[in-house]
């Protein structure tokens, strides 16, 4: 049944107005407004941390909003839990695959609507109906296949099939193509269009502008937990959308110090690691901050982990001060003056149940305890020095890192490395999940470190941070370097285009 693309006059199936949600004082959503129309695809666009995931979780009942209204078919609703969402006709294809590997495709599709005969599961009917749905979706795998044998794309399709077991009014696709190849994504879009033509309202979350322009009819842009613009896709363009996404003054947030660039400190040549990144080459000079931008899955973290010796490269070389170095484990990396502040601060960066002193001293025990015995006095001295130097807000060096705020935890992680006086500091999403004030403080610390004649390599998904702090920006997409831009060339448009191939 062909439903023509509805005009502005048609009534939305689902509207959200002024929806708010905060987690422990941090606002994830401040003012979320959204309208989904039948037979239309609405693209939800925003940077990481703009509140998209929180919005999805509210719509599918995993989180309850603190305030605001959700209206479905003209009636106020509260989505109690995911099962309730499904009953209301709201279905989600989640970004991370929500599929049961230990069950068959058929059982996955009917996980919350098992066909029954009397009170018992009717396996034959389940298989038959699953086969029908899979055929309707025009995919070739068997309903008896164990889900563990499916590819990521096929698992997404199983989730869509799940939506088709009931009357799907609203289908949310949460970055479904992040891990898919072009062909797999095309298959997914074909299915999405068919659902749209049957009158379903789709919400499509994606970073890829190419896909947004190909699939969506409308857009809504989120920034810092609020919707900041919406309209018809036909009346907009990439530049406009990027401006809405980023749209804040960059200078205030990023206190970058003037530096003089010295000689080349770190050079990476043709570094490759199968399935992670390929032929990555770049160099960083003394005093320089190199920003590495890319979407999730572009291979940035994998590159950093390889540089730091956590994984071994398949080919390529790393040079420090003009000399080739071999780094086969993190201890080598540390000896060569490298330091790595990982993305997952709580799991990989800090040891939360340890005190600040214990954390700061951990990589420095060699110098603090030359004869193999720890010296509590000297440890506390060192910790106190860095608490002062980085402005760590804590009751003292004995406070547990787990009790500190995210920003102060990150400062502790940076301090433990700075105490070793490294030459190259690799930061992976250094300000992820920490509040604005602490962000500038972290930036001030790294900028000062660079100013003293060291090199900083900063991976970030936050465009303003990349643009604000970097002397040069390296953009990665699908494991390859797509652009290396000087500070003057690095505009939001250029960087995003290189990262998304828009």
């Amino acid at each position, binding site marked *: 049944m062909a439903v023509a693309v509805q005009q502005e006059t048609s009534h939305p199936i689902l509207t959200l107005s002024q929806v708010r949600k905060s987690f422990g004082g941090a606002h994830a959503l401040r003012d979320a407004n959204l309208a989904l129309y039948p037979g239309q695809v609405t693209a939800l666009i925003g940077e990481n941390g703009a509140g998209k995931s929180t919005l999805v979780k509210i719509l599918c009942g995993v989180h309850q909003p603190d305030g605001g209204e959700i209206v479905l078919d003209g009636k106020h609703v509260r989505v109690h839990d995911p099962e309730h969402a499904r009953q209301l006709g709201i279905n*989600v294809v989640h970004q991370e695959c929500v599929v049961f590997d230990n069950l068959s495709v058929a059982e996955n599709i009917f996980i919350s609507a098992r066909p029954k005969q009397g009170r018992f599961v009717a396996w034959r009917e389940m298989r038959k109906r699953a086969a029908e749905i899979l055929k309707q979706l025009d995919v070739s795998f068997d309903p008896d296949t164990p889900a563990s044998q499916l590819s990521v794309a096929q698992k997404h399709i199983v989730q869509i099939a799940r939506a088709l077991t009931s009357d799907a009014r609203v289908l949310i696709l949460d970055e479904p193509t992040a891990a898919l190849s072009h062909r797999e994504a095309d298959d997914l879009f074909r299915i999405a269009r068919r659902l749209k033509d049957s009158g379903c309202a789709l919400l499509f979350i994606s970073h890829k502008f190419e896909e947004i322009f190909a699939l969506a009819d409308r857009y809504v842009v989120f920034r810092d937990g609020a919707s900041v613009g919406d309209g018809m896709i036909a009346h907009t363009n990439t530049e406009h959308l990027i401006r809405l996404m980023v749209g804040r003054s960059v200078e205030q947030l990023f206190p970058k110090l003037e530096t003089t660039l010295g000689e080349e400190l770190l050079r990476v040549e043709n570094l490759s690691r199968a399935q992670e990144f390929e032929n990555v080459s770049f160099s960083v000079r003394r005093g320089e901050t190199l920003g590495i931008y890319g979407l999730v899955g572009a291979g940035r973290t994998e590159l950093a982990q390889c540089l730091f010796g956590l994984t071994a490269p398949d080919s390529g070389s790393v040079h420090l001060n003009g000399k080739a170095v071999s780094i086969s484990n993190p201890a080598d990396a540390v000896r060569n003056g490298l330091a790595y502040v990982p993305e997952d601060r709580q799991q990989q960066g800090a040891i939360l149940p340890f005190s600040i002193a214990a954390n700061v001293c951990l990589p420095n025990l060699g110098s603090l305890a030359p004869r193999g015995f720890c010296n509590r006095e000297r440890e506390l001295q060192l910790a106190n020095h860095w608490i002062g130097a980085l402005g760590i807000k804590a009751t003292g060096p004995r406070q547990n890192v787990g009790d500190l705020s995210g920003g102060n935890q990150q400062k502790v992680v940076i301090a433990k490395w700075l105490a070793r006086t490294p030459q190259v500091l690799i930061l992976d999403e250094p300000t992820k999940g920490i509040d604005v004030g602490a962000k500038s403080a972290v930036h001030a610390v790294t900028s000062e470190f660079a100013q003293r004649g060291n090199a900083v390599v900063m991976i970030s998904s936050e465009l303003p941070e990349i643009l604000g702090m970097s002397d040069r920006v390296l953009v990665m997409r699908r494991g390859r370097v797509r652009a290396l831009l000087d500070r003057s060339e690095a505009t939001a448009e250029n960087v995003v285009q290189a990262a998304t191939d828009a």
Partner: protein
Amino acid sequence: MRMTQNSAARRDLALGFIVLLLFGLVTAAFPQFARPSNVAEVFDDSAILIMLALGQMLVILTRGIDLSVAANLALSGMLVALFNKNYPGAGVLPVLLLAVGSGAVLGLINGMLVWRLKLPPIVVTLGTMSVYRGLIYLLSGGTWVNDNMMSPGFLGLVRFELLGLTVLAWLAIIGATVAAFGMRYTGLGRDFYAAGGNPSAATYTGLDPGRMQCFAYTICGAIAGLCGYLWVARFAVAYTDIALGFELQVIAACLIGGVAIAGGIGTVAGVVLGCLFIGVIRNALPLVGISPFWQMGINGIVIVAAAVLSARRREDKRSILETQTA
């Protein structure tokens, strides 16, 4: 399903073959081992283990573990023994209800601690294991309840024979049949697999994995309670230390039977075969003239060997996955 069934069915088939082989080898050397009366005895001897292992399977399927089953069994057993001693005229029905009820409550305590307080299952049940044992001492004052203090009905039920098998053995057969059917054909049974296979996915489909864990502990506890009565009646004695350390045999039976400690995978047939494996060895060792102390060693070797095999299989799978996503 057919494929997942296949890999599980293949494993069950292999284990079944091993159990038969073991049985055949013992019989070849000692023909009396295969006499119907002896087979019935081996089965009678394995019945309690089978029932407990089926309960434990539910708990492990949902990513838990219940170290307190044997203590629960002993406490429930002491409770009904004392009840029978004081009210010998009450009959067996109240005894059964009391056993199942007290076991279920003790299991529910585990379940609520794991679900509501989100405590690690191994810590919770290690703790309750000691608490339940301690309660037996408080309840009994450290004294024994002997067979002369138990009523004939209380003692006789488990020994009553039907078609050559004891009531105890029939209970295990009925239990395994109900479990096999329930795990495959009821929503609750499928939910145990789903919640244990991928708890976060379960949450996103509106199924609370913590609640399923709590269910599993309660059912496991109820079974342990029932087995408490069966144990006390079978051995005709109740004291603080009955079934001491038996939880390890129960867990071993599950692991030998192919229940994945990481949750979500396991079959009733596998668990029953795991129990029979242990039962055959336990009954054959004295016959062959090997000290029963070898029993634990053999169980251990089988568990480690099974773990090594399944770890290698997992590695194969992962490498396939990696080449596929390339």
